[in-house]
């Protein structure tokens, strides 16, 4: 059972426009949600996170929105740049004493066209 889902495998956006990446989850016990960016043949890079008690977190061009009632979060990138082209993973975290295990979505490939 996939607890974290990214239903769009790919997204194409024009440079300068907004990119919206979506993520849905099923487990209401998640404490934090994170977005990672991954280039080919590299490890994922942490972008931004949001606590489950918040509904918005902003960092520069990146904003994450959380809708707990819908069990949905999204990452907005404004304005989009060609260097943003990568695979974006949504991840969810339950905080416990056994270590913070992340559950990842399947990823969305973002292509920003010049």
């Amino acid at each position, binding site marked *: 059972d996939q607890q974290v889902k990214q239903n769009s495998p790919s997204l194409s956006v024009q440079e300068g426009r907004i990119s919206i990446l979506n993520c849905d989850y099923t487990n209401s016990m998640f404490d934090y949600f994170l977005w990672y960016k991954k280039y080919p*043949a590299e490890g*994922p890079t942490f972008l931004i996170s949001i606590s489950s008690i918040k509904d918005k977190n902003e960092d520069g061009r990146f904003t994450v929105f959380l809708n707990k009632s819908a069990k949905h979060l999204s990452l907005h990138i404004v304005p989009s740049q060609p260097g943003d082209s990568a695979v974006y993973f949504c991840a969810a975290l339950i905080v416990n004493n056994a270590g913070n295990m*992340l559950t*990842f979505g*399947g*990823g969305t490939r973002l292509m920003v066209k010049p």
Partner: protein
Amino acid sequence: SQTIHQWPATLVQPVGSPLSLECTVEGTSNPNLYWYRQAAGRGLQLLFYSVGIGQISSEVPQNLSASRPQDRQFILSSKKLLLSDSGFYLCAWSQGSSQPQHFGDGTRLSIL
């Protein structure tokens, strides 16, 4: 600052051969350590995690094992590789239960 190193970057091994992938973290102490695998076209699957020396937890039954002989060293091993072990293996660390995990650059493992 903290850094994480994984090696080798790429590895080609025959079926039935052993495996040892190493991961080390610098600039921090007592990190949580993780091994993930990304199969082609799929998301990241947690294989093992460790909250301390000699403490290993496995998330999925498989042909692989992990060890943590030192505080900042995490090793992924297999005695006999299978074709299905091919993939991209990633090591990660985090400090504390609510902190993000930070990933190494990964090892591309191809089994022939």
